[in-house]
């Protein structure tokens, strides 16, 4: 009976919206607090995403990297010439246009360079490369100048190093390992770790540093599915003491500690901060209810259901969260212009990466903001809907 009015009509959204607008200062402060939390949340997500992107893009799934067994990174690894020869003659290796296998022996050493605007050295990776190195990493482009000539003390510098360190411009000379090295080019490696490296001829660098061993061997697979069997075979080969990893796996391992650190720091920070913002929303919504008790009574007297009142106040809280979320994301999107460079503990050298915003992060941040609004608004909204009409009207 009396069902005709049960069609659950809702109080218009404009009601919630205008109530927020009327108390501009309070709304601004509450949404502002939430915006800052969302900003921190989004920034940290963008940072760990940027780091991930950098390291994942550095490697290719087709490429396999060989290091000494037990070595965490190329820096600690060593592969000698005999071992290299064994690996280079495996049938699974792809070959280039000239028929030679696509494989490169590389040496990696860190040197201290002075960052612009500081006087303290930071570690930068010098990579000794061979002719094949560029073929195997198609993401690399020469921006300025040319490649180093084989057999000469010439180097090229990643653009991220060129930007942030002094004395590494084209035409300048860099002194390390008792020799002067001529910078003949700047290369761009996109958002990869290579952008933070200096490259030169492998043999020259080995001589200069008096290193008899290569750090790593990288080769292209003819067919990606051969990987498990090849890994099995090489790792059990008694003449070799090596670890066989896909390049992508290798670079992911490299950043694990840093990524975990950023994630843990980020989760705990946003966790604590969101508590603060939710308390802000709670205070605002409580006051919003308290100031409008008579209004709530009137709406109920007119025939609006408890649910409609609940929804109207939840809508208000969600709008608050949405406003905070959108402003937070807009703020965070400016972070994309910033590049962070810090030492990667695992490789002991500089790594530059940027904040990278994705649709997924935007959605997650919005959901996060709405959740903050919802949690902050839930109790007051329930309270509003539970008011007794007569009591509310007397207020």
């Amino acid at each position, binding site marked *: 009976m009396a069902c005709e009015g049960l069609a659950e009509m809702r109080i218009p959204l404009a009601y919630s919206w205008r109530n927020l607008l009327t108390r501009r200062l309070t709304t601004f402060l509450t949404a502002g*607090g939430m915006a*800052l939390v969302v900003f921190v949340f989004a920034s940290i997500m963008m940072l760990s995403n940027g780091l991930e992107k950098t390291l994942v893009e550095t490697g290719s799934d087709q490429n396999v990297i060989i290091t000494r067994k037990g070595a965490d990174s190329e820096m600690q690894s060593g592969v000698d010439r005999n071992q290299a020869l064994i690996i280079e003659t495996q049938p699974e290796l792809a070959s280039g246009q000239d028929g030679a296998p696509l494989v490169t022996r590389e040496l990696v050493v860190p040197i201290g360079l002075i960052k612009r605007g500081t006087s303290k050295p930071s570690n930068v990776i010098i990579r000794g490369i061979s002719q094949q190195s560029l073929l195997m990493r198609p993401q690399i482009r020469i921006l300025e100048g040319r490649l180093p000539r084989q057999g000469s003390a010439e180097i090229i510098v990643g653009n991220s190093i060129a930007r942030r360190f002094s004395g590494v411009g084209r035409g300048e000379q860099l002194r390390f390992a008792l020799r002067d090295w001529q910078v003949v080019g700047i290369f761009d490696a996109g958002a990869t770790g290579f952008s933070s490296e200096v490259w030169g001829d492998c043999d020259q660098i080995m001589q200069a540093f008096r290193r008899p061993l290569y750090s790593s061997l990288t080769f292209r697979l003819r067919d990606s599915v051969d990987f498990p069997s090849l890994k099995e075979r090489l790792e059990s080969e008694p003449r070799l003491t090596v670890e066989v990893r896909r390049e992508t796996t290798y670079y992911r391992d490299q950043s694990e500690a840093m990524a975990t650190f950023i994630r843990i720091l980020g989760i705990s920070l946003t966790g604590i901060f969101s508590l603060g913002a939710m308390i802000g929303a709670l205070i605002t919504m409580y006051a919003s209810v308290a100031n409008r008790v008579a209004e709530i009574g009137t709406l109920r007297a007119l025939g609006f259901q408890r649910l409609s009142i609940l929804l109207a106040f939840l809508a208000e809280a969600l709008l608050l969260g949405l406003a905070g979320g959108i402003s937070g994301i807009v703020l965070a999107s400016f972070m994309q212009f910033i590049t962070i460079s810090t030492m990667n503990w695992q490789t002991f050298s500089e790594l530059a990466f940027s904040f990278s915003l994705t649709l997924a992060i935007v959605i997650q941040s919005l959901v996060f903001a709405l959740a903050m609004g919802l949690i902050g608004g839930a109790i007051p909204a329930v309270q509003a809907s539970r008011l007794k009409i007569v009591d509310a009207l007397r207020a």
Partner: protein
Amino acid sequence: MFILKLLTRNAFRHKLRALLTITGIAIAILSFGLLRTVVSAWYAGAHASSGNRLISRNAISLVFSLPVSYKDRIRQVEGVKNVSYANWFGGVYITEKNFFPSFAIEPATYLGMYPEFILSDSQTSDFIRDRKGCVAGRKLAERHGWKVGDSVTLKGTIFPGSWEFNLRGIYQGKKQTTDEGQFFFHWNYLNETLRKNTPRRADQTGIFLIEVKHANLSSQVAQAIDGLFKNSLAETLTETEKAFQLTFISMTEAIVVAIRIVSYVVIVIIMAVAANTMAMTARERFGEYAILKSMGFGWFHIAGMIFGESVLLALLGCALGIGLTFPVAAAFAAQLDQFFPVFLIERSTLWLDLFLSLLVGLVAGLFPAWRAVRIRIADGLRRIG
């Protein structure tokens, strides 16, 4: 006293709102305190270093070693009191998760240079006598349940293989800020093995530790040492222990800066929350302010009431926050002693807490007070209805 009573009554007129605001401020003060403590833990190594100690390393980078034979030439430099050397070993215990700083050292000279590591005489001589002996910090030994006499096996990441040691001593820190999480063993043991397996890497060391006769001589001695090896295959870079530690920190500076910024963001967030509370409170009381004004109270009375109330709330939150910081930091330290061997709340952090909460209180009261002071009596009275 009457004033305080009035302020407290006013502040708690909306009990729930007051409690929520205080909780918010307490959370902010708590997280600010923790973040600052994280930052100071980052610098703990540098702060604990002695001005009398220099460190010499390969000028190219720390990954390169120096010939151990340099030792005798360094000792002859004017102003040098003592020389020792150490090699970063980078071992892990059972799995990668159990990572801690481990060094191959020359035992007698090294321990002599680090009086902050307290080791009993008998343990010291046991350690020196046993070629495969090792010494661990108190916290490290506790974490893994090691007792003196136990045998400990580490896996080398830089020097491959399994390395077996006998725990001959457990050192304690002289001060609270001493790192009790390190692991030391004989450089000779490492070197003998390297001689057998990879002679190329033998007779090398990562760093030399140099004790100078007087801190004033540091820069002079450092220059003299670097001059000795200029243009040799392995040039040295000598600096004070503190500068050496700071190089590490400066490389991760971006993270420290980020934590610093974020610790102030939380204060701004809570400022917004507190300002919101005060804005609402004042809005509800405009009528009362108008009545007070009509009775002849001046603007400073009204502003004083608003500021007094917001500062009171902020200080209560601050007290609660500081009270929480200690137990939470202790729990944190227990969880993270692997990363932050020293995790102590500095006194300056507490002063800063107090200062910032005062600031939050004042900023929160600013706008409402301005509006309340400006409101015309007639307008204010109309709002009562």
